């Protein structure tokens, strides 16, 4: 069966319709079947519907995503309570160890993201990976810093990524590779994204899963949960009526 590829982090300037259409078209042209766009928390339903329409026009599936940057654990819990049922994907930008730990143990968090410049601080360690593994969290790696940085910065980034990926693999934490692109020149084809992951020692099969099976599984799981027919994991409403 042909693989379906997903890019869970395409950053769009939602005020600029031309940019939105251009990025969606390019993502579709490059061979992705699903894209997730980080949206502001208070974005109107109408705007989301417009984005869905544009994606449909370019034959690509759209998933809503919200990026949380909480300062405290309480702020994170509050945001999750408020937003979990509104968005298909919830990513937490872990800017401190405290937040990283809370995000890793919360089952409502889908993606753990670590800002490029903070990666050296090593928030994604064994303890973090163990928590994430128990809570179905995934480690998200953006390719944008890998493309935009150079020299010593990139060397340090690759070294941190190599360590994080090895920890994730040891603890069976799924890895998600996304573009994090904010312009079309930073978008890469799925095979190219997979090739870039070899720089931090992710083998080819895992690399392809990181852009196909793993992101698709998150979206599928969350769509099922957000569906009105969902009762509990593995249980869903088939039919409603007196004769059931």
């Amino acid at each position, binding site marked *: 069966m042909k693989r379906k590829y997903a890019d869970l982090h395409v950053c769009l300037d939602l005020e600029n319709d031309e940019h939105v259409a251009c990025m969606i078209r390019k993502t579709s042209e490059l061979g992705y079947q699903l894209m997730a766009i980080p949206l502001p928390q208070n974005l109107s339903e109408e705007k989301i519907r417009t984005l869905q329409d544009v994606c449909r026009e370019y034959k690509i599936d759209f998933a809503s995503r919200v990026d949380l940057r909480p300062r405290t654990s309480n702020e994170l819990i509050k945001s999750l309570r408020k937003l979990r049922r509104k968005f298909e994907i919830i990513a937490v930008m872990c800017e401190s160890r405290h937040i990283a730990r809370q995000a890793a143990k919360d089952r409502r968090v889908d993606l753990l993201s670590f800002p490029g410049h903070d990666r050296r601080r090593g928030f994604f360690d064994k303890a973090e990976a163990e928590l994430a593994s128990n809570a179905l969290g995934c480690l998200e790696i953006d390719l944008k810093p890998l493309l935009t940085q150079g020299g010593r910065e990139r060397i340090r980034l690759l070294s941190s990524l190599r360590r994080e990926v090895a920890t994730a693999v040891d603890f069976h934490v799924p890895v998600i590779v996304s573009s994090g692109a904010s312009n079309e*020149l930073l978008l890469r084809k799925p095979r*190219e994204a997979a090739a870039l992951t070899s720089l931090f020692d992710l083998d080819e099969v895992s690399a392809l899963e990181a852009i196909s099976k793993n992101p698709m599984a998150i979206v599928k799981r969350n769509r099922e949960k957000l569906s009105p027919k969902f009762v509990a994991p593995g249980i869903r409403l088939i039919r409603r009526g007196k004769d059931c």
Partner: protein
Amino acid sequence: MSAVWDAVLRLYGEYGASRVGLALIDYDAAKKLVILRTSHATVGMVRAALASITKVHDRPVAVHVLAVSGTIRALSKKMTRKYA
């Protein structure tokens, strides 16, 4: 071609660059198409190096691999099938 060599050198160093056996076969400026030859064992390395190119002569660019094949004949067939 220097941009490709630079990218390979940046990512894999001189040792890595010596393994890829990179050569320019054809370049069509009008269609913006390049055919490169490399050792089949290092296709992944060249793919990663090409994907890492973001600028050529300070102009932002993106390089994409359209097809990979063992022979030029098979490559032309593949390209015709895909993009004709």
